[in-house]
């Protein structure tokens, strides 16, 4: 490492020595830079082309520069198109910068720096603040859905504050993490739920190895680089925005009412006559889904103050977001404060800080579980309409046939509350040593304080009464510090442009948790605060603590070179040392190379007018994945029994555990045509991951499975982005952005001769529904092929290997086969923006095509095996010989007709009107009179229409997406086992800017 670093420094010194440019025949040029509406733009970078000298505009957008009369000036500013203007001897120049939009000239944030989009040689998707505006986005990851090609975003649940499953160019791991790394204002992290998306300036997704290799062992799943808003010199601005909306499930499911339920239960093939009496039907006819799902709401209030002087800029914001769920008591609220400051101390020193403080509070409710494990959604569907809400004693009513209490048990008797405080702050200094060489020193901390409490009521439920209630609390703190020291060198001579970066970073995390528990709470104390109840509970559990530490020390380097903006090259190298592996296997080095050719700059292209820009690019590189690997996963560990200090053998681990390595090759084309009205980007990639961590379930070990670097995996895909300004002239404007991504994921090798593991996606009381199969992708459904209902017997028939159709009793396990994939063939998004005078209409569609969903809800609601309430589909069930139907007969306590089979496998494709927003901008003349700079109001609908053949609540489901087991999370895709449904949101909002 030291040798490498020394060489690098020597190289930089050499470059400095050979570089010296003299400038002749200077004249003084002055002028102004403004946006297309004529507002002066402060802080615009002006560079004398071919040199590194330049200046910036002042608060009014004015500038002064000494330059040769025959030179050109380049004007660049984040969010605006870069423009190059030949001085041509003029002393006064007026420049109007156009907004960047999707233009190729926009400045793109990349790893450890920025690049102009035209100079990019890697595959990067960008989502800007405009894509987030006026949408009720709580977790910034939602903003990527349908907006960034190559990124698949799936909500695990419609619960407020629920997590997302985000895959950049498919899944590359089987048992480690598959979620991308986030880098917010330079701090790498894995969770951005504390952040307020309204503060985000831009989100860049680094998709290929060429762009992400600079993040080394944490980059194989892509890197999402986020920058937050900064103040603009001289443009003091106070923005206020708010919205309020109501939420309802995107769809409701219909279950039997009391009389229909009585008929089903009293069927001689079920419980028989008299099982549900007329008096029970008369006493209660409760539609439990309606009882459970209510209108929720969502609201947001945001104040942002930004501005500053030439030397000091600030951005300060305060944001409050609150969601009340559709199912009590789920809710989420978050208060975020941010201060971003930058100050130029003198000519060579600039200091800056970005700090966020946030408090998140949520009430959880169990979903994605069967009724036996307290899942509220399946309880809502399965609780009989004749079950009373409460018993005469005041207990939660229960289905006496199953013993399960109604969903009020999950809603009222269990209280899970989480409080998260997070402080993320960085402080940095940029020191300009010489004109070409800058040193940046940055220190950051990311501090989280978490408290989660659970309370089980000692009165309402049978379990609660037997336990006398129970109380648990987990309190944890995590401090991650980061030190990042980088040298940046930039130099241009003639038509050559060179920049180089060398750096060292270290990051260390310390996490500590304390858990306490208690039970036997006197019933009269059950309405007190958690802490009061804990003190009053008469039996205390054994407290315990856990500690988890990790560290990462890395060296990184990058060289960019281009000739005349025509031939572009980039090379990256990162070397990581990770504490997660044994000393002998700790160091990993990841290189990448990429090149681009801007064909449109060539002389022979100058006559082809309809092409404005054309670039081809190619990249190759490697990166690693150590996310999702425990801090001590390479060690065989023993648990210490907190009760008496005894030893329990806990894990077995191979000493040679290491990171996964992905190698990716990417080819891309960027083109704009027809006066920049049509732009097109296409990428193809081949990504192969070796040493894939597989949590191999072993037969005959002390652990169910061990984590081994055994597998290999492949993702091949194509991404296309088209942006079109369909109508640009006059009052009516229409833009369309379309992106579509194909990814083919394939497990090349599981390892050690294993070609098949049917260990995933367990369906309660049935078998596993997912197999990991060599030669297939993750999320392959495995089960019987259902071939309809026998009209004579009413039994569900299945296909055997020999091609016979038989009832379940005559099948063998080996008759099961692969029956479909949970992975879509492609995902897509399309945004149409129409504007007419003061109105904007945005219609954003998003969808997924070709994926299957295993509808576990129907196993419960059409299982016809016990006293659970059923869906109205069972009204067509087989009842008499000769009945021709696809719903089999009732069969008490028998799963033969409801095995994991194609009967419950459905097409999960969907096309969703994700957002429809109509926005009205008030005229600025009127606003100016009352002291406002800008104001707009809007109404919006989220998830208004979902076109799908899926029979569950919503096709965006992922029951195993929140599973604590990585392998289940990665492989058990596309299963719906009672997810809290997605919400349809109607909202109205207001944005005001004070001038």
């Amino acid at each position: 490492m030291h040798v490498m670093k020394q060489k690098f420094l020597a190289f930089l010194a050499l470059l400095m020595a050979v570089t010296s440019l003299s400038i002749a025949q200077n004249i003084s040029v002055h002028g102004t830079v403004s946006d297309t509406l004529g507002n002066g733009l402060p802080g615009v970078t002006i560079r004398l082309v071919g040199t590194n000298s330049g200046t910036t505009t002042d608060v009014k957008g004015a500038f002064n520069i000494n330059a040769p009369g025959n030179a050109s000036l380049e004007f660049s500013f984040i969010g605006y198109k870069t423009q190059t203007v030949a001085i041509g001897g003029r002393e006064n120049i007026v420049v109007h910068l156009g907004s960047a939009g999707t233009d190729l000239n926009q400045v793109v944030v990349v790893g450890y720096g920025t690049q102009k989009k035209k100079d990019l040689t890697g595959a990067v998707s960008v989502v800007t603040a405009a894509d987030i505006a006026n949408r009720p986005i709580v977790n910034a990851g939602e903003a990527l859905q349908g907006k960034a090609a190559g990124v698949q975003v799936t909500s695990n649940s419609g619960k407020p504050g629920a997590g997302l499953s985000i895959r950049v160019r498919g899944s590359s791991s089987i048992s480690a993490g598959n979620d991308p790394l986030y880098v917010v204002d330079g701090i790498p992290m894995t969770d951005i739920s504390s952040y307020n998306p309204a503060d985000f300036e831009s989100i860049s997704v680094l998709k290929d190895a060429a762009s992400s290799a600079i993040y080394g062992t944490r980059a194989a799943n892509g890197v999402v680089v986020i920058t937050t808003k900064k103040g603009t010199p001289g443009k003091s601005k106070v923005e206020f925005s708010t919205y309020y909306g109501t939420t309802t499930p995107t769809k409701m499911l219909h279950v039997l009412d009391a009389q229909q339920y009585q008929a089903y239960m009293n069927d001689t093939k079920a419980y028989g006559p008299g099982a549900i009496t007329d008096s029970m039907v008369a006493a209660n006819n409760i539609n439990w889904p309606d009882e459970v799902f209510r209108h929720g709401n969502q609201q947001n209030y945001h104040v942002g103050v930004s501005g500053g002087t030439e030397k000091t800029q600030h951005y300060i914001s305060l944001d409050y977001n609150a969601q009340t769920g559709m199912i009590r008591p789920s809710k989420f609220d978050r208060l975020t404060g941010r201060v971003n400051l930058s100050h130029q101390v003198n000519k060579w020193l600039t200091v800056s800080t970005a700090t966020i403080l946030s408090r998140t509070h949520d009430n959880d409710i169990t979903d994605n579980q069967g009724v036996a494990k307290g899942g509220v959604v399946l309880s809502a569907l399965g609780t009989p309409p004749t079950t009373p809400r409460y018993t005469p004693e005041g207990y939660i009513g229960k289905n006496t046939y199953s013993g399960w209490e109604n969903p009020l048990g999950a809603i009222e008797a269990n209280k899970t509350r989480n409080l998260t405080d997070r402080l993320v702050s960085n402080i940095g200094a940029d020191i300009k040593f010489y004109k070409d060489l800058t040193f940046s020193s940055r220190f950051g901390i990311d501090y989280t304080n978490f408290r989660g409490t659970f309370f089980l009521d000692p009165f309402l439920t049978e379990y609660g009464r037997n336990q006398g209630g129970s109380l648990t609390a987990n309190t944890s703190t995590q401090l991650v510090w980061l030190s990042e020291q980088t040298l940046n060198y930039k130099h241009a001579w003639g038509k050559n442009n060179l920049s180089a970066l060398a750096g060292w970073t270290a990051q260390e995390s310390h996490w500590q948790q304390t858990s306490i528990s208690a039970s036997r709470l006197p019933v009269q104390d059950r309405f007190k605060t958690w802490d009061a109840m804990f003190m009053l509970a008469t039996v205390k559990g054994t407290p315990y603590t856990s500690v988890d530490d990790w560290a990462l020390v890395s060296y990184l380097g990058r060289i960019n070179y281009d000739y005349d903006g025509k031939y572009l090259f980039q090379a990256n190298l990162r070397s990581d040392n990770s504490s997660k592996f044994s000393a002998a296997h700790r160091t990993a080095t990841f290189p990448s190379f990429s090149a681009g050719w801007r064909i449109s700059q060539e002389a022979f292209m100058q006559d082809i007018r309809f092409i404005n820009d054309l670039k081809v690019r190619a990249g190759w590189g490697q990166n690693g994945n150590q996310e999702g690997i425990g801090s001590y996963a390479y060690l065989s560990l023993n648990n210490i029994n907190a009760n008496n200090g005894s030893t329990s053998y806990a894990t077995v681990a191979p000493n040679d555990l290491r990171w996964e390595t992905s190698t990716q090759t990417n080819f891309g084309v960027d083109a704009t045509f027809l006066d920049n009205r049509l732009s097109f980007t296409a990428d193809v990639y081949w990504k192969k991951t070796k040493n894939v961590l597989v949590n191999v379930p072993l037969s005959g070990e002390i652990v169910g499975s061990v984590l081994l670097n055994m597998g290999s995996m492949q993702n091949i895909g194509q991404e296309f982005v088209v942006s079109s300004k369909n109508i640009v002239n006059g009052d009516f404007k229409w833009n369309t952005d379309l992106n579509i991504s194909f990814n083919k994921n394939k497990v090349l090798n599981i390892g050690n001769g294993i070609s098949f593991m049917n260990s995933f996606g367990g369906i309660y009381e049935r078998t596993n529904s997912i197999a990991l199969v060599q030669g297939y992708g993750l999320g392959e459904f495995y089960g019987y092929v259902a071939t309809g209902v026998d009209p004579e017997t009413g039994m569900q028939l299945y296909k055997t290997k020999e091609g016979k159709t038989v009832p379940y009793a005559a099948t063998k396990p080996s008759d099961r086969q692969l029956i479909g994939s949970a992975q879509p063939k492609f995902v897509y998004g399309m945004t149409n923006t129409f504007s007419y005078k003061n109105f904007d209409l945005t219609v954003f569609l998003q969808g997924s095509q070709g994926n299957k969903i295993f509808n576990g809800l129907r196993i419960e609601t059409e299982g016809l095996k016990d006293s659970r309430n059923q869906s109205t589909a069972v009204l067509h069930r087989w009842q008499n010989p000769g009945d021709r139907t696809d719903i089999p007969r009732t069969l008490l306590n028998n799963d033969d007709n409801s095995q994991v089979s194609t009967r419950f496998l459905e097409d999960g494709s969907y096309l969703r009107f994700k957002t429809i927003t109509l926005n009205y901008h008030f005229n600025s003349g009127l606003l100016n009179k009352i002291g406002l700079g800008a104001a707009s109001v809007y109404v919006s609908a989220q998830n208004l229409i979902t076109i799908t053949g899926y029979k569950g609540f919503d096709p965006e489901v992922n029951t195993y997406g929140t599973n604590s087991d990585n392998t289940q999370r990665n492989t058990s895709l596309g299963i719906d086992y009672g997810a809290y449904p997605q919400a349809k949101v109607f909202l109205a909002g207001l944005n005001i800017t004070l001038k």
Partner: protein
Amino acid sequence: MKRIALYSVITAGIAIAGSSCTKVLDKYPQTQTVRSDSASAISATDAENIILGLYQDYKSQVEFNVLDRITNGDVLSDNAYAGGDNTANITLDNFTFNSLNGNLNRDYADAYVLIGKANIAIQDVGRSTDPSLVAARKAEIVGDAKFLRAFTYFDLVRLFGRVPLKLKPSNNSSADSLLASSLVAQSSVDSIYQQILQDLWDAKASVPRIGAYSSKYTITQGPVFATLAKVYATMPTPNWDSVGYYCDQLIPNYSLLTDYTFLWDNAHKNSSEAIWEFTYDGWNEGDKIGNWAPSQFWALENRNGVPTMVSGGWKRFETPSNDLVSLFRADGDSVRLHASITFLDSTNTFTDTYWSTAHYPYATKYNDPNNGINDFYLYRLPDILLLKAEQLVKKGDLNGAMALVTQVRARVKLGPKTAASPDQAEQIIANERRQEFAFEGHRWFDLLRTGKAIQTMNAVKDGKGNILYNVADYRVIMPIPQQQIDLNPKLVQTDNY
């Protein structure tokens, strides 16, 4: 100049930071311990913590060691119906199970978890060089672990027949070696029994004499002799002389409790009758390990402070069979009937094909479904008395055999039995075992040992006199769970599955 000075300081800073980087990378767990390969790593205290942990792991494995033992012993046999709504149990009861049965898979996996832990303990403690670990104590700890390993292999071989014989911890020096040493092929039933005997002989020589400990969970020669007697009687080629020998070693050291109900009242734990007993202090006392198996059989609800027997729902695993209830009644065995079974009115809570819900039997031998304080007996004296009786029948001593049966019956106020033929004597002993050990997980294994499983099961009738089962011969050995075969390609499925 200022900047050059600053530059130097920063460069030096980076160099220092870079060179001190390795220290920050050495992270070890604080709240767990790392298992070391070094022989000197195990101190005397570590060895005590290891064996205490292994004991706790065995009894906290309630699912395999208690609940499924009862399911396999009583539901598989003619003692109980599956009850409840769990299809894995129901298919076991009906002999329609296949290799996908969830219970069988978890039993197989859970057994190897325990065996694997015993293997590590045997190696860890066995190579400790700490002089303060006294040789006798060290031998005893290793002997305890070997006994536990043998006990679990005995469970496995009776259920699954040929299984892999793993006797050493897996080699974790690399991923390849870990896999190679974990995925082992099956051994013959004979060699598994030879290993069980080897471990039991080792244990016999190193654990203390009967009565050395007040807790009947702590291993002495008692549980070792009892397992030896059982193993010798169960092996493909039984050795009845050895069965008799070990029974004789045990019988004088134990005595029956005066009242059968004392066994189940939680007030007579570690009694003179218990040979090996999982002692449970419940969730809130002592080692805080509770026995939750009874909560699957029936429910006791705290209604406004009053514990009330509530029935219904799925909480009726191990529903007593008509056949068993008839046996108790035909023998006038009201003491053991009422100690084992309670009839409750469960109208409108479920329907059942075997019993009227208005008068439905629950397995209530374990009287506390909530606090986890019911002990579980692996061996108690009547088991050995009746095994000795079987051995006497083999020797032709019918009167001696019946005297032992009579001794067991006298405690529950039943008269003596006499037998005119060996067949009749064996039938009397078998019935006595059913009544004495209902819901203690013995019956299916008694049927297997005596070779009467198929003929007995195919004669069982329901309450209306209909034949209940049609069990094929091959079903006396369970299928190797398909999931285990998927994971270990060296495993071969039991014939006919």
